[in-house]
């Protein structure tokens, strides 16, 4: 099992960048990370298509501590249904004040990962329950 207390570090990092340099700096941090650190993930998605997207996120959520997530592929897209987000669950159980923009990182990071792979990303919901969709870009 992964060390869930690292979620505390993620939450604190977002707060530090936001409070020190502002919202634009935080968005730049997320998108820069996606362009650089996650470049390999985009390469995998580009090469393996939606099958690889489904495989990647299924494996990823399976290794996170707790949470309830299903990953399915249908109708030309991969839908990640987060019923109980492991990060939000861990932070709440730890009594942490979750930054109000915590869930936005999923939108910004995954949008860049998808675009770099020639795909599109959509996010609905938040605060522990959301729906994330990776799909092929329409021609």
């Amino acid at each position, binding site marked *: 099992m992964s*060390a*869930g*207390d*690292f979620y505390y570090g993620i939450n604190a990092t977002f707060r530090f960048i936001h409070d020190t*340099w502002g919202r634009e700096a935080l968005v730049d941090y997320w998108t820069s990370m996606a362009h650089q650190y996650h470049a390999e993930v985009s390469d995998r998605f580009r090469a393996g298509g939606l099958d690889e997207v489904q495989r990647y996120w299924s494996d990823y*959520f399976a290794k996170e501590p707790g949470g309830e997530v299903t990953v399915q592929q249908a109708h030309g897209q991969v839908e990640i249904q987060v019923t109980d*987000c*492991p990060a939000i669950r861990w932070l709440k159980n*730890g009594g942490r004040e979750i930054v109000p923009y915590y869930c936005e990182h999923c939108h910004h990071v*995954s949008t860049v990962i998808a675009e770099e792979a020639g795909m599109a990303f959509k996010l609905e919901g938040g605060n522990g329950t959301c729906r994330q969709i990776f799909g092929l870009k329409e021609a």
Partner: protein
Amino acid sequence: MLGVQDFIGYYDWTFEYLRRNYGEQAVFDYWGKAIAFDSQRHARQLFLEKGFEGMYEYWAHTLEMEEAGYTFDRGEDYFHTDMFDCPSKGHLIQRDLEAYHDYCEHCMGWIKPLMEEAGFVVNHEHNHAGQCWWEMRRADDRSVKAPPVENPNDVRRLENWKQESHHLYLNSEPVDKS
């Protein structure tokens, strides 16, 4: 989603991102403020309220969760840890990741301010290869040199301890070993 399974990889990347965009001092501020007093507030509470016992509680929980290779040694006047297989640095070495020029410094970066606040000093040495030792003592218990190698589990007994470059701290301050 940013998960915890690859946290170490983008934690290291974050150090370099901050250095590149805001300078080296921003990295030290990040460790000394965000990590120490926000992320690690549970550790802070234990150090403040329980001293050496709190250190044992914190690191026994954390290192077990991170599946580290380590031993503890406790006494009336000290709390000592030998880390012979750091899971964090090991994660980076195994994946050939090194975004920031000195990942190991982050531990002193957040531990030192919390220890100072709780009334302790840190004696510490790491070799940048996933091995280090720590000895916390009360603030008035000053050290003029590293503790002797007496414990059979002391990481400094290992044949490969002397690999890579070493950073040594006594009384929470860096010591030039050259």
